[in-house]
């Protein structure tokens, strides 16, 4: 959750409900899978579940990143971003 907040420069704050709701849907869609359960010494040795992208999830993430990249390039060509306002 802290990672998401940091990467989005504070604009996206995930709570436990939003995070696990999304994880449930991703698991059902086969985009992520459980990567086992292990203790986290930094957090009082409580056992935590870990999740990892599946091959399908990686393909979907790449396709989505490609789509966004094309969108940003189109926006740049139209000078909607990347230019200083006059």
């Amino acid at each position, binding site marked *: *959750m*802290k990672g998401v907040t940091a990467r989005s420069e504070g604009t996206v*704050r*995930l*709570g*436990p*409900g*939003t*995070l*696990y*709701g999304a*994880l*449930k849907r991703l698991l059902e869609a086969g985009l992520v899978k459980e990567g086992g359960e292990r203790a986290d010494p930094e*957090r009082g040795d*409580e056992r*935590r*579940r870990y999740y990892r992208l599946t091959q399908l999830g990686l393909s979907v993430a790449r396709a989505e990143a490609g789509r966004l990249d094309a969108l940003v390039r189109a926006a740049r060509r139209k000078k909607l971003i990347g230019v200083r306002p006059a």
Partner: protein
Amino acid sequence: MSPAAAERIYRLLLRAYPPDFRAEYGREMGLLFRDQCRESDVGSLGFWARVLWDVARSAPALRADAWRSRGSENTAPLEVIMKLAAMLTLLLGGVIGILNAAVEWVAASQQSISGTHEVSLGLGIFASALLLTAGVALLRPTQGGRQAARLALFASLVSVVAARLLFPWMSIFSQLVGFGLPVALLIVLYWPRKSSPLGAA
């Protein structure tokens, strides 16, 4: 407010989520909330506003998901209703309807029976036979079975209407069964419902 008190409040808030989801992720969500408590001021209004916003944003959608998946999985009551409807159709429309028409035919044949009355009785027997067919088709819980039942019910209704027009003194029982049963079954067969493994009716 202490972090322990905040965790107790959060455990109460977790009740907003569906039981299956709580059983699967409740512990993890509690641990994550504990992390948040360590890193934030649990006494601040902003902290609780974020927590409540998270629950309000995610719980209704998950409840709706759970409700939808339960609805699509649970088709057993519908199948039971269709089976009962099929048996009722077989009994009332088919067997009793044919017997009733045959008795009327015999009774009428002992007197001088008019041509239109004869045709009307024939149509009544034909309508009952179609109801019998619809009942048998409904016993097969497939899309094809339901389609056949719909066709047989429509044809039966048309036959009864024709018989009633030819012979207005049709018995109350014949009218109740002849009009009521196909109309009720057609309403059931065309009633919009959630998708099921058998497909929409």
